[in-house]
């Protein structure tokens, strides 16, 4: 176990090192003058010089790389040079709660829909329920969230007028419902398929047959004996899908005009401010790597049979 932990942390460290390096060099390949793209071509020469110094662009490339690492280590992700004194991290901290709220709500929706449907489909394989839910889940995977969002808006905000429009300055749970459904649908479909196949495998095992034979009720066999074992791979999928939720949030935040890391990233791209782009991309990948690491660790705790050697 200790060996596994050391190796797992070591791999994560290498990955984070690679991510930072890759992001640094990709963004330094941006053609044109980053100073001009932030300040505009007409900016005063003095301001440009100041900005160049602030962005460390007057240093040689390897020195810039080291200074970049310094910014990563003190978790500031660099100072925003067009707003002196404000770091990228401070801006990120302001928008992160909104994105996490969205991602968690989507995950909650996905679990609420996906797992029960998966169980029902697995209890009666190849019945009409199973076949219908198989088609529905395939549709859930195939519907792009950037189409589902506008369609839900047309249906619920425009036609039925039961839920608020985006931009109507609404807060609270109702403003979260449509974005969460939009973001969570694909994940719920994946969870459903995973739960179904995992349940089917477990339901054919001997211990389930034994439980049935000794007269345990059907509901108890399914929910107590089978489900607990079937959920292990499902937990992994939930962890792995967290990254997809964060990337999906970029799109969903755009559709519903919500604040968040995605909106900040798109604004950064629009303004061609590479410090903002860099900060958002690093934040999303870092959280993804950390969640994957946690999933791996939780996996071991959930299932004591798993051995790492």
């Amino acid at each position, binding site marked *: 176990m200790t060996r596994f932990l050391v190796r797992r942390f070591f791999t994560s460290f290498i990955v984070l090192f*690679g*991510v930072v390096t890759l992001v640094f060099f990709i*963004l330094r390949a941006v053609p044109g003058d980053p100073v001009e793209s932030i300040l505009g071509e007409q900016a005063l020469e003095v301001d440009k010089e100041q900005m160049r110094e602030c962005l460390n662009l007057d240093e040689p490339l390897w020195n810039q790389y080291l200074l970049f690492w310094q910014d990563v280590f003190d978790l500031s992700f660099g100072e925003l040079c067009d707003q002196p004194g404000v770091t990228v991290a401070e801006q990120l901290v302001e928008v992160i709660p909104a994105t996490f709220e969205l991602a968690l709500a989507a995950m909650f929706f996905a679990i609420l829909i996906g797992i029960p449907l998966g169980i029902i489909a697995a209890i009666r394989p190849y019945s009409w329920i199973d076949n219908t839910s*198989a088609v529905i889940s395939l*549709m859930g995977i195939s519907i792009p969230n950037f*189409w589902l969002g506008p369609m839900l808006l047309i249906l619920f905000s425009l036609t039925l007028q039961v839920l608020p429009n985006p931009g109507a300055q609404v807060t609270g749970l109702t403003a979260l419902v449509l974005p969460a459904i939009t973001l969570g649908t694909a994940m719920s479909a994946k969870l459903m398929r995973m739960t179904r196949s*995992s349940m089917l495998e477990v339901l054919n095992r001997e211990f389930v047959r034994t439980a049935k034979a000794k007269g345990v009720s059907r509901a108890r066999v399914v929910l107590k004996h089978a489900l607990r074992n079937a959920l292990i791979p499902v937990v992994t999928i939930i962890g792995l899908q967290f990254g*997809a939720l964060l990337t999906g949030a970029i799109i969903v935040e755009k559709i519903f005009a919500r604040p968040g890391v995605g909106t900040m990233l798109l604004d950064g791209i629009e303004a061609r401010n*590479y410090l903002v782009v860099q900060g958002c991309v690093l934040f999303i990948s870092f959280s993804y790597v950390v969640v994957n690491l946690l999933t791996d660790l939780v996996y071991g705790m959930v299932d004591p049979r798993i051995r790492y050697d």
Partner: protein
Amino acid sequence: MLSQLTKLGIRKDHLERLSPLAYFGIVVLGVVAFVAIFAPWLAPYELTHMDVTRQLESPSGDHWLGTDENGADVLTLIIYGTRVACLVGIAVVSICSTVGIILGAVSGFFGGVIDEVIMRITDILMAFPGILLAILIIFITQEPSLLAVIGALSVSGWAGYARLVRGQVLSVRDEAYVEAATALGFGPKRILFRHVVPNTLAPVIIQATFGVAGAILAEAALSFLGLGPQDMPSWGAQLDQGASYFLLTPHMAIFPGLAIMFTVLSINFVGDGLRDILDPRGLSRH
């Protein structure tokens, strides 16, 4: 064609066992390919046709699916959009699967330092969820072209194939037929690519099928974010435009989305069908 399929482990009776949904998918994809190839003959208007006096019109006899903010015909744009979808889907999956098969096979077969290096690179690439790396790469191109989008999606996409193939190669590397080939004096290159790799391709074919759907969705998502190809009409870009006018007129948001959904759904039907016949366990559907 059939003899090539046989080499990959697909037999004639396999094709007969393909599910009705998979056949439905194949038919729809045939139509999509047909539309993509013959777009200029099928489209009711020229691609450059714009009538500024008829902006944002709802569907009518003249414009079956209405017009967009420039007064261009939505149906025409959707028909030409099939080209972007097909090109991106096929190009990205061809590049990713080729690179992934070669690097994954080498990684799994030779092991050691090569394996360690290739796998760490895939780890790093896979730490960027979804289209994040593609967004980053496209950020550095000023005016993203179709080639830039294909390139960006390929850079981030091959790692999954490499991981899959590596795992497969590891599982067959010690089989008797590999030993027999070694005993016959064949070189490692011949053993790897003539004996080992062909026996690992069934799951790669399944993943590649779903990969086409993934690439089409990714391109549409990039276009929706304004980062798609600027030189050709894309479904995602039309949806982006439609989404900003949905309060005024919903048709522009509805139809490009339907095109994406039907194409992707059909590919997924085919992928599921292929998995059912190629997956020996038969029951899995995740």
